[in-house]
Every structure is written in structure tokens, then in C-alpha cells.
């Protein structure tokens, strides 16, 4: 097991007026316990405002929980966000974007006394990684705006995977993409996972996408996990009424 959450709570104050006096709280994450096994994809599905992203941020350590415990069994964590337009620095070239994580890591190592010639290593590794995410070599010296949405998400994946993570939080990684491109990116994520045995927390509002990716699924509503189980079971025999409602809302052709 790589991630273990026990009774995790996080609330935000509702502020009103000029003085921002707190007039109430939103319980964004309200007593969540879950376990994520190594090398599996754990799907977290729910509607907007249910607390999925807050939970992702708590696991990443960006937010601190108000109560409960979060254990993450690795320091090699990465994240892939929904909108690559926003998550890639528009003034950096692809090479710098992808290599940055590695450079930062090795300079940390260097401070500890190991002087790694990261520049040269990184270049080869970055090229290899771009090849893996099926971007042409010429991409190296271009800027994010010169790519389509799908290609930009490939860059974000390359950046995340290059640092050799054991665990990646994917927060709605394909929601801003067209359906044909969605499928390509999901397949790429699966390939990468197999190759490097990475664990995913896969957050999405789209039940079809979550089913395609996940081994196990948790359904979240109003800060709580209402149902959790193997993907097959959730989709064939849902217990909770809310899960049934979500499944009934899928439009098939």
C-alpha cells in the first residue's frame, strides 16, 4: 500500500463582506478513509464541488488536513493537471519545462555532495521521454503555445514521468480534450504506468473515463466517499443510490 488516508477532514471558511468575517464553513473533505495499492489506478469520481480536487491536494501535501492522517509511502510524487495551457509556463521551451524537475532534483543531490553533470544527462533523458510520449524531437525547442491541447498534455506527462515518480495524482487530465484525443492520452497514461509501474490517483467527473482507467473506484459526494470497490463491481452492482444516479446519467450511443 502506497497511500493511506484515515478520517481526513478539511474545511474552508465562507468569508463575507469587506472584512472577510467567517460566516460558516464548507466541509470540502469530510472524513475520508481510503487505501491505494502500489501500481494500481485508483479512480475518484464525483460531480463538481464534491471535494475531489481538495482530496488530491491533501494527498500531494499542498493542503494540510484539519483532522485525520495521511500516509504516503514515497517521496516520488508527481501531478498532472486538467489544463496544460495553465500548467505549462508559456515563456519556457519544452526542453526547459520537461527537464526542470530533474535539474531541481539533481541540484538537491549536488548540495548533498554528489556533483552530477545533470545538463548532459538531462538532454538525453528528455529526448527519450519526448519519444516515449510520441512527440517529435523538434518539439524540444518550441514553446507551449505552438502545440495542440493533446500535445501539451503529452508534454505535461513527460515532465511528470521524467523524475521517475512512484505515484502520480492525475486531476482531470483529459477533461479539456476532444474525445479522440482523450483516448490517445488515456492509452499513453496506461502505457507509461505499465512501463514504470506507477501508481495513479485518477480524479475525474467522467464515469466513462474513470472506468476505462481504474482498477478500483471511489464515488465522492459532498466531501464523503459514498461507495468504494473494484471497477467491475461499481459499474455492474452499485449499492449506493447516488452511484446508481450517476450511472443512469451516462449517455450511450
Amino acid at each position, binding site marked *: 500500500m502506497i497511500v493511506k488516508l484515515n478520517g481526513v477532514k478539511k474545511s474552508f471558511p465562507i468569508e463575507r463582506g469587506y472584512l472577510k468575517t467567517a460566516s460558516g464553513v464548507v466541509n470540502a473533505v469530510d472524513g475520508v478513509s481510503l487505501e491505494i495499492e502500489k501500481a494500481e489506478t485508483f479512480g475518484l469520481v464525483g*460531480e463538481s464541488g464534491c471535494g475531489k480536487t481538495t482530496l488530491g491536494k491533501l494527498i500531494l501535501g499542498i493542503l494540510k488536513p484539519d483532522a485525520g492522517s495521511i500516509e504516503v509511502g514515497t517521496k516520488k510524487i508527481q501531478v498532472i493537471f486538467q489544463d496544460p495551457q495553465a500548467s505549462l509556463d508559456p515563456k519556457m521551451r519544452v526542453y526547459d519545462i520537461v527537464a526542470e524537475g530533474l535539474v531541481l532534483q539533481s541540484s538537491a543531490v549536488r548540495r548533498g555532495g554528489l556533483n552530477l553533470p545533470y545538463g548532459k544527462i538531462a538532454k538525453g533523458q528528455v529526448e527519450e521521454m519526448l519519444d516515449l510520449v510520441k512527440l517529435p524531437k523538434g518539439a524540444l525547442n518550441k514553446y507551449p503555445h505552438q502545440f495542440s491541447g493533446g500535445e501539451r498534455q503529452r508534454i505535461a506527462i513527460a515532465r511528470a514521468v521524467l523524475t521517475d515518480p512512484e505515484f502520480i495524482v492525475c486531476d482531470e487530465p483529459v477533461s479539456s480534450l476532444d474525445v*479522440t484525443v482523450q483516448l490517445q492520452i488515456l492509452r499513453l497514461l496506461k502505457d507509461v504506468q505499465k512501463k514504470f509501474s506507477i501508481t495513479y490517483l485518477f480524479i475525474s467527473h467522467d*464515469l466513462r473515463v474513470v472506468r*476505462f482507467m481504474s482498477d478500483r473506484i471511489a464515488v465522492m459526494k459532498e466531501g464523503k466517499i459514498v461507495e468504494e470497490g473494484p471497477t467491475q463491481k461499481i459499474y455492474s452492482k452499485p449499492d449506493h443510490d447516488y452511484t446508481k444516479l450517476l450511472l443512469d446519467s451516462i449517455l450511450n450511443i
Partner: protein
Amino acid sequence: MNILQVDNLKTYFYTQHDIVKAVNDISFKIKDNTVFGLVGESGSGKTLTVLSILRLVPEPGKIMGGQILFDGRDLLAMDEEYLRSVRGSRITMVFQEPSSAFNPVFTIGYQIAEAILAHQKIGEGKARESAMEYLKKVRISDPKKIFYDYPHQLSGGTKQRAMIAMALVNKPELLIMDEPTTALDVTIQAEILDLLKEIIELEKLSILFISHDFGIIAKMCDEVGVMHGGKIVEMGSAHNILTSPKEEYTISLLESVKALA
């Protein structure tokens, strides 16, 4: 009869270096009391087709040719005054983002009544009554309260219901819906689509329905045009397109959808 007939419509954008053919010679017809769907990926030209019909193409875009017959008259040949009498009255719209389609500083009731007063010769009291009636028709749970609410006080789903009410108050001959449920959660989406289906049956509406989602198209439309790169690559009954597509692009699009289903 056809409520709308588009022939060889061309809408181009002129940039400094080249011409982008956003709508590249498309033709289609919408029969009375039917729902015609335009489906395609982002950038395929769906929304620009809508904007061309309404003559609202933004600069540097230009309609370069074709004709758009509505009620026997070519909208491309009409003057601004005539277009004003058509927009919001005989042809109405529901857009993707209800929060940006409403004016944030007026109440919902005021805005719907305003739409009525702009096109019908009735008194304010009557307009308000009519607005209230339509808020009930789209099954908003507490119409008396919502009438006096501002847009930011409503949830996305309620806002879109109010938007639909506003699009119906002037009894349009053609209703254009551009991704009306894309901004909503799946459960709300299902509710809104069910409501729309009911209203379409009841009021015998003619609709141009834009979506990127084949699931929605399958549920809502009688006929479908598949758009790609500014062209309609395939057109036919929704059933035929979905079950036996002929064009390579349509096939690949449907395969992607099915792989996830």
C-alpha cells in the same frame, strides 16, 4: 417545409498571413418540428456556423458566400433592422455558459421580461406574468423566488433552465442550442436533456443543436451533420450516422466514443 436552409455557406477569417476557412462551403436543411444536430470536435466550425446564421461573426471573420434561407428570405441579404426583429424573437439561442449569457446586475425575472418587451407589444405586467409562466414551464422549483434572484444566486442547472425559459418566451420558430449542457454535471445534464425532450415534443420546436458529445446527439437529434475542418463530412438521419457511418472521420470519431463506453 424547411424552417432553415443553408446553402454553400462560407465564413473565412483573414489573418495577416493567411485565410482560415472556418466554415468551408456547407449546406444543410432543418425541417419543421425536427432537431438537427451538428457534431464535431473543437475547432471544427460548429459555433461559427451558428454565428453566421445569426450574422454575428466576430472580426476578422467574414461571411464570404452562400445563402441562409429563413422563412423564405435570405438572412445574408437582410439589413440590421430586420435581423434585430429576428434575433431573440423568431430565432433564439441557448449558449453553453449560462453565467456569461445572463447580465449579472439584473434579476432573472427582469431579464426574461425584457426579452418579451423587446419583441411583443404588451404591457409590463403581462410580460412579467408571461416570464413567470415560462419559469414554471421549465420546472424551476421555486419560480417566485428565482424571479427576483440575480444570476449568481442560482446553480448552473437552474441558470440554464432560466436561459431555456428566456429562449422560449417569444415562441421562436427556430431555437439554436450551442452545447447547452456542456458546462453542467452529468446528473444535471440528464435532467435538462429530459426537460428539453419534453418541451420539444410539447411545443413542436424546430431546433439546431450543437454538441461535441455523440451521446447527447444520439438522445436529442433526428438528423445529424458531422463537421470536420469547416466542412460537413457526413449527413443523414441520426440512426444511420450512429449505426452505419460511411465516412472515415465519422467512423474514427465513433470508435473513440465506443472505446470509452
